Each structure stands twice: as C-alpha cells, then as structure tokens.
C-alpha cells in the first residue's frame, strides 16, 4: 500500500478562535448517524455556524472570503472530547488538509495523522500573528512545512512543533499504519495463542 508522502501543505488559511473546541462542536453527535463518512463535511462546526432554522450565524467558515481555505488555524486543546473519527473526517471532507493550533487533544491528533492531516503546534503569539495576516489578506498563501517544522506565510515564518513519530509517518508516507501492521501476521498469531486469546 503506497501512500503519498506529506512533506508540505500549501493553501490559504482560516482562523477559528477559541480554546477547548471539542469534538461535539466540530461535529455535533446527531450528525454521526451515518454508515459512511461521505458528506460529513457540510456539518463541520454546524451548531456554531448555523441557527436552529438552518440560516447562517456569523462564523469564519461562513465568510465567503475564506471559503477556499484548506488550512485550519485554531486555539489550544483543539479536538478534545470524544475519540470519534467523525471529527477529523468532517475536517478533511470539508476540505482542510492541515491544522495549526496551540495544542491538540491526543486522540484527535492521532486520528488526524492516520488520515494524513498534519497537525502542527504553534505558540499563541505566532497564531495571533498568522490569524491577523490571514484576516488582512484571505488569499495569503500559507505553507505548512512538515519536514522543516515551519509555517511560511507572506514574507514571515515561524517554527512549529510536530512530534517525531507523526512527522516521520507523514513525510515517509507511512501515516496509515495498516501496511506495517499486516506484515507481522504470523508473529501475531503465535502471540495471540501464548496470551491465551486464541486456541
């Protein structure tokens, strides 16, 4: 199984402020009643984007200037709450290909990497600068360089943190571990027996 090597993500950004944005806010539970992930993108941040009658609230994702954004910029502890992969799936299917935040919830982070969505950690100050730049010019090209652990925009850049294991997985095209896992099938069978799980 050959996967793309994800070394950089280029696009435009949109800033969704707030800390502790949980998975229920990213994708409200009532939209999880589905047997495939297709179509989840349209419900991303639904309750903060829409009034109960379905009309738009004021929200960065409803702002036409940011409609083509592919890089999501967020606050701290982004993606906390549930382990549901519906949240990263909704983010991916909406069109985002990278997330820059002050920090990420652990399970959410892992789920994103497995989908090939780099999540990079920046300081609150750097995020403010980037958010202001994107607000001033929504067409500003933003590059998340996973390999070099830097974010570039306009003539500015800052360092971001990406845990080594996630970085290696993304840039070597091994972000989806299934190929690796399938390799040791025989050993797993032996160990399953030794541990008393299988006869």
């Amino acid at each position, binding site marked *: *199984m050959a996967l793309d090597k994800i070394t950089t993500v280029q696009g435009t950004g949109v800033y969704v402020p*707030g*800390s*502790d944005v*949980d998975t*229920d*806010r990213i994708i*409200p*539970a*009532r939209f*999880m*009643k*589905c*047997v*495939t*992930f297709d179509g989840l993108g349209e419900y991303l941040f639904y*309750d903060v984007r829409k009034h*109960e009658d379905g009309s738009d609230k004021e929200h960065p994702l409803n702002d036409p200037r940011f409609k083509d954004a592919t890089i999501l910029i967020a606050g*701290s*502890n982004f993606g*906390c*709450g*549930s*382990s*549901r*992969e*519906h949240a*990263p*799936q909704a983010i991916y299917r909406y069109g985002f290909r990278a997330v820059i935040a002050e920090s990420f*919830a*652990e*399970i959410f982070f*892992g*789920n994103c990497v*497995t*989908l090939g969505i780099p999540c990079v950690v920046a300081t609150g100050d750097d995020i403010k600068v980037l958010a202001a730049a994107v607000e001033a010019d929504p067409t500003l090209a933003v590059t998340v360089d996973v390999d070099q652990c830097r974010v570039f925009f306009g003539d500015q850049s800052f360092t971001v943190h990406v845990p*080594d*294991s*996630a970085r*290696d*997985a993304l840039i*070597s095209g*091994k972000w*989806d*571990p*299934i190929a*690796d*896992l*399938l390799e*040791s*099938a025989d*050993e*797993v069978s032996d*160990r*399953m027996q030794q*541990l008393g*799980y*299988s006869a």
Partner: protein
Amino acid sequence: MGNGKSLFEKVWDAHAVRELSNGQTQLIIGTHLIHEVTSPQAFGMLRDLGLKVRFPERTFATVDHIVPTDESSEPFSDPLADAMIRELRKNAEDFGITYFDLSTGKQGIVHVVGPEQGITQPGTTIACGDSHTATHGAFGAIAFGIGTTQVRDLLATQTMAMSKLKVRRINVDGQLPPGVYAKDVILHIIAQLGAKGGIGYAYEYGGEVFDNFTMEERMTVCNMSIEGGARAGYVNPDDTTFEYLKGRPYCPGGDAWDAAVEKWRAFASDPDTVYDDVVNIRAEDVAPSVTWGISPDQGFSVTGTIPRPEEGETPAEQESIREALEYMKLEPGSPIKGTKIDVAFIGSCTNGRLSDFREVARFIKGRKVADGVKAIAVPGSQIVAKLCENEGLDQVFRDAGFDWRRAGCSMCLAMNPDKLIGDQLCASSSNRNFKGRQGSPTGRTILMSPLMVAAAAITGEVSDAREVFELTELSSKC
C-alpha cells in the same frame, strides 16, 4: 528499590509485538468491542482493501447509542438509526462476530456488557471505538478508546500502532463522607487535575477507597478517565475483581479458573513500582459534586458558589469561565444549589448499573418527582434492566414519577430520541457536559451522582442529596 513494574508496563510488555518504523509500538489488542456508530465505516474500509477479520472470535458487538429506549419494535421510526442497526447485524454475520443483539436479552451499552459477560478480564488489552473504553480498566485491563481507522486495523490484524503512556498513580485514602459516591471521587479528581491533566498518561487509581470499592464503583471512576484527559485508567485486580468475574459466561471455569486467577493476580503493580507521577487525595475532601460549566473539570462541591470570570487565574481561564456561564445561563457569585432543572437523567455507562439504581431506589421510595420535571431512568443493559425488575426497582422508580426505560445510551448523547429541547437544564448521571451534548444545541447539562440527580428530580432544583435524604444520620451506621 524501584525495579518493580506497574500493571500498565506488564500488560504493555506482554502485548507489544515490535517497534514500527515510526517509532510507535505494534500492540496486540486481545479484545475488541464494537458498536453501531464507529464500526460501519471501518468494515467499509476493510472491504475496500479486500481484507478479512483476522480473529473474529476476539471481537464482540452490541448496539447502544442509537437504540430508542421507549420503543422495542423494529423498524425504528428513525430510518438512519434503522440503517445503522441493520448494517451492524450484517457486518457481524458476514464476518462471524458475536453480536449481542436486541433479541438476545444481553444487549446494552458496550461498557456495561463487556464486564457483565466476563469478556473484560485482568491483564488484557481491550479497545473500542468509543472514548469511555477505559471503563474496563476497573478490572486491571489496559483499555483504550480508538478511532475508526484503528477499528479497521484491529479487525484486520488484531493489533494497532500506539505510543506508550506514562503512568500516574492517584491514591485516595481515608473514608468517604456520607452521601459521597464514586462519581464524586472522579469529578473531584478531574476538577483537581484538570480536563487536560491526564494527557499522555494512564491513571492508576488506588488507595483505601479503591480497595473498598465494588467493581461497579471502580467502573464509574475508570469510565471518566478520559474526561480528565487520560486515555486509559485502571485499578489493580484483587479479590473483589475475581469474585465479580467468577461464573460469568466468558470467564474460564473449573480448574482453569484457579490458573486464571493466579495469572491475573500477577499483573497487579509491584509494591516498589516507581510511577511517573503520584497524586494523593484525602477521601474526606471529596464532597457531593456538580459541574457548573461546559467542561467536566468545571465542577465543585454542591455547596459551592458559581465562580466569577475575574476569579480565573489567566485571561484564558477567565474567558472560559465567561463562556461557560453564558452558555449555562448561570449567575456568577450565586450558589449552584437552587438552580432550577427541567430534566433528570439516571443512566449511561458511568452510572447505569444495578448498584446505581438500587442506591437511588432506597431513597426515593415514597417521594415524588417535582412538577414540571421530566425524569428518566435508563438501565445500562438488558441484564441490568432484568436484575432491577426482579427486585421491583422499576416500580419504585415509576411510583416516584420516573420513566423506566429500555437499555441504551439514551440521554447521554443525542443519537436517539431522548434529547433535551431548547435550553432545558438536565441533572445528569452521565459523563459529559459539553455544549449540545444532550441533543439540543443550547441544552445544558449538570453532571452529578445518581443520588444527586434523584435529589434534584424531587426538589426540582440542584440540591444537596445529604439534606434531601437526611443522609448524615442514616449513613453513619453504614
């Protein structure tokens, strides 16, 4: 000194296959639990890749989130829910997986069913596409919540890629005061250590209080490890654990039982284990607890005063208090006691077991739910329902004005017809008070123990169960 290993390390070492190229460990997951919400997409991916389920006998399925608790006949009135249950049935059949369907009498919330069937065992690894999987840690298992892609990995290989966690030992010593329950212990721990405090850790709960806890109490605490940020939480196995498991359908019997107990016991943390962190909590400091905000760590004693944003130590904290109070429509500086409630919910994988209903039933006999409050009691599994009904508890709840429902996740989250409407405020024995969690985008949740929910149901407002049920005298004899 210090050569001892924790249970976490022992179980990890026993299940580690090898180091993967990304530095993570390939870990055998002995038991895989699945439900209707996070599994269908994984089966889809499996089919796309042309793969089979590698050890179908190690995966167990049940249906819980979408099951309506007020109707039993299929098709369900919600076509989406109906599609989900049919999909699970089909996948279980196609791949030869044991499925505790509605017709089996064994269906229920996955974290109630696993222990009840004796599938959950000490020294094992368990995973489920559900963040409350740590519940199973009560048995001395290492249990994680996983994403759908990892569900696929487990189906295909019975292994997953994972980075090792650190271990924080949390000791709770002393005697819990009357009216204080396991739920209060975990709400207290989360309020102390924060909703992010456990990131990167497995929590090992121990000390006098845990030694004396029943398995159901241990499950209540382990269940909410994730609300404290810890991906796994566990209690070392002991005689209480083995006694609970003895004779359960999936546990070894006869001679094999003694051998199993011996093996299980050896997994307990060694006395000279050096932990990555240790936290000590006095049982006497734990009070009947409630949340006041929209994150599980925004909680305190029911005697507390709703914080003012100025009390936040950092601007970010001040902002989150402000945001929480605005959403909860609570008045800063006033007591939380006396806050009017609209709905009372007793159930969920945190507090939907026999002992929860028994305890509440003891006190609500002869009392009535306040006018205007909708109160529902939802057993965590069909077996819990049956055990309660055998003891006549259902009638006690009905007489008090509760709806007695069928097993399911119900009002813990909004995937079935049990939902809040508008900005209704719910006194809830569940585990999450996130915005919109209980089905209405403006619905409000206050987390508390089942007895505190009962007190709120009866008085129509957030109340101190110790006062409502005159607990101090009563419990001094226990």
